């Protein structure tokens, strides 16, 4: 009794050519399935995709917006990716970003008269610390009693959102706009500068610097090496007497700090005020960025810019009365096909109705129906 005429055979190794083609296959397939979704909802996929491309890469204005949006995505992607090096799932970048921006806002409102550079550095440090502390709330139970960090980091997102909302409607309310979902503005010298007269803020540069520093920390230091050992093979780590608990705490704190940095950039370069929608789902999209970037930290900026363009393009569709959620759908589909392709690449597909070959190494998709 067979449902599908497919047999799978495990490959010994995946060729590098296959591995390189995988993202291209995934992106193309994602766009094709997305086109079907668009077509079914009565929209010409070609027009929609052209519009998305024009709005994100097609003009100087669009390109600027794409790069500004890429900064938080690169950082949240980096935050998720570095935790993954230890097999930790930091789903809480959204909340850590929110806390980071709240920490920076605290500095801005407490010492509003400090000169610009000092104020910016102090706010950035506050954002790093706030993000790290928020991540530690999940990291400590994970390290001590092995409580699943996926659930806890995720819950902390919802708590952070309410916390920021409380601050914005309460203590940090704008007296000129009571009842609006944003705080009073940060001091003018706290706004992040732009690059060489363009409208492009320094955020994207800062985020790429963060990627470089993190890459160096993971790939070039003893600490980074110990993290990779513990992430790859915990038993080998234990044999080498590496302290997994301390590494869990440090890597999660760094992960949270990086996401907190994204909050600082959002606050100083984009919104200028604390507001509950400052994270705008970047923490969640960061998970997808990390998945798509795969094993290479240096791929994160590329993927971040690509996803930023997708989001930017999605908003342009919204202006035309379409739903911007198509960009979320596209992101999800692309990562899904990366996953599918990544697994499928380890198999050799055989098409046959006959099940004569039942030698070792063969597996049937309908295994179980024997």
């Amino acid at each position: 009794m067979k449902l599908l005429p497919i047999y799978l055979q495990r490959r010994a190794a995946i060729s590098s050519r296959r591995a390189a083609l995988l993202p291209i296959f995934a992106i193309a397939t994602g766009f094709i399935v997305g086109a079907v979704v668009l077509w079914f909802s009565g929209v010409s996929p070609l027009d929609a995709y052209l519009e998305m491309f024009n709005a994100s890469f097609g003009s100087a204005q669009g390109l600027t917006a794409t790069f500004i949006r890429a900064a938080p995505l690169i950082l949240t992607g980096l935050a998720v990716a570095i935790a993954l090096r230890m097999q930790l799932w930091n789903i809480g970048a959204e909340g850590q970003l929110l806390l980071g921006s709240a920490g920076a806002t605290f500095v801005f409102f407490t010492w509003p008269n400090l000169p610009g550079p000092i104020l910016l550095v102090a706010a950035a440090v506050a954002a790093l610390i706030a993000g790290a502390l928020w991540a530690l709330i999940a990291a400590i139970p994970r390290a001590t009693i092995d409580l699943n960090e996926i659930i806890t980091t995720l819950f902390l997102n919802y708590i952070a959102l309410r916390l920021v909302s409380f601050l914005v409607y309460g203590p940090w309310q704008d007296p000129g706009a009571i009842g609006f979902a944003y705080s009073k503005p940060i001091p003018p010298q706290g706004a992040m500068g732009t690059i060489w007269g363009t409208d492009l803020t320094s955020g994207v540069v800062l985020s790429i610097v963060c990627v470089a520093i993190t890459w160096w920390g993971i790939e070039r230091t003893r600490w980074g090496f110990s993290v990779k050992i513990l992430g790859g093979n915990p038993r080998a780590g234990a044999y080498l007497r590496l302290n997994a608990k301390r590494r869990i705490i440090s890597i999660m704190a760094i992960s949270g700090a990086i996401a907190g940095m994204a909050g600082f950039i959002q606050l100083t370069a984009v919104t200028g005020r604390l507001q509950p929608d400052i994270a705008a789902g970047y923490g969640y999209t960061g998970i997808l960025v990390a998945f798509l970037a795969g094993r290479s930290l240096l791929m994160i900026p590329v993927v971040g810019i690509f996803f930023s363009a997708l989001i930017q393009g999605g908003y342009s569709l919204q202006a035309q009365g379409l739903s911007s959620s198509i960009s979320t759908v596209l992101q999800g589909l692309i990562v899904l096909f990366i996953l599918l392709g990544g697994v499928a690449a380890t198999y050799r597909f055989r098409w046959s109705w006959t099940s004569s070959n039942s030698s070792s190494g063969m597996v049937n998709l309908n295994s179980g129906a024997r």
Partner: protein
Amino acid sequence: MDFLSFALTSAIVLGTPLILAALGELVSERSGVINLSVEGMMLVGAATGFVVTFSTGNIALGFAAAALSGGALALVHAFLCVGLKANQIISGLTLALLGAGLASFIGRDFAGLPIPSYISPLSIPLLSDIPFLGPIFFERDIIVYAAFAAVIITAIVLKRTRIGQWLKASGEAPAAADAAGVPVFIVRYTAVVFGGLMAGIAGAYFSTVFVRLWSDNLTAGRGWIAIALVIFASWRPLLLVPGALLFGFLDSLNFQFQTMGITVSTDILGMSPFVITLVALTIVWWRQQRHGGAGVPRALGLPYERESRI
């Protein structure tokens, strides 16, 4: 209505979608497959259920569509994780986000439109005449009764039937189960899809019966609460009920304090269910760890590969 009866009533109403979604996740996890896309499946179910109910005026059709859409998303997860042995966490998280996006897309033209109440309470004769408790427990709608019945049925199936044995065997020791003739792959596929159907129904209950509206991210994290409830309940169906009712009660306080004129920040109230669940989860988990094992299915999260069986 006095405070206590109102609190208990809303705990049941708000707890029902949690019971449904958590029960589906529990069955999936008992078979060895963790599905983190409950929130996405609930949202897709909520959007589909709302759109179909709104368009046809038939809520039964709405629920059927919601169940199918949740099940379809779960089938993708099952294909990736059971069929192709992909990483369950990556697949689940991706589908959670994809589901949220798809739900927004499905419901985009229906956001903010109200629908009438299609389901009326069904009072159970005799039982609803019990003073105080009768009206609270036995004048509810049919989905509430069905959710509680589903919990009891699942508990019995797990404990007393062969299907229950197969399910547990697939989640505890899939290689041994396979050798003993249990169709591990079919069991896992079925369990995951069952989880999707339940999450879809839970979402539809939320959008078509409780709030009777569609808006983006309508379920606001309740899918994740459902996953936490499974841990909370040590993977035992009957223990889902107190957790779900507690969360439903906390969730309802927000509405109640407003109607009672007590001015507590809605944000503090809104975060309280998450804070309390987080604290409770930590304590429960810590106690379970100290008393040896938390009832986690031994093969949870691990793909079963027949070809690598020893």
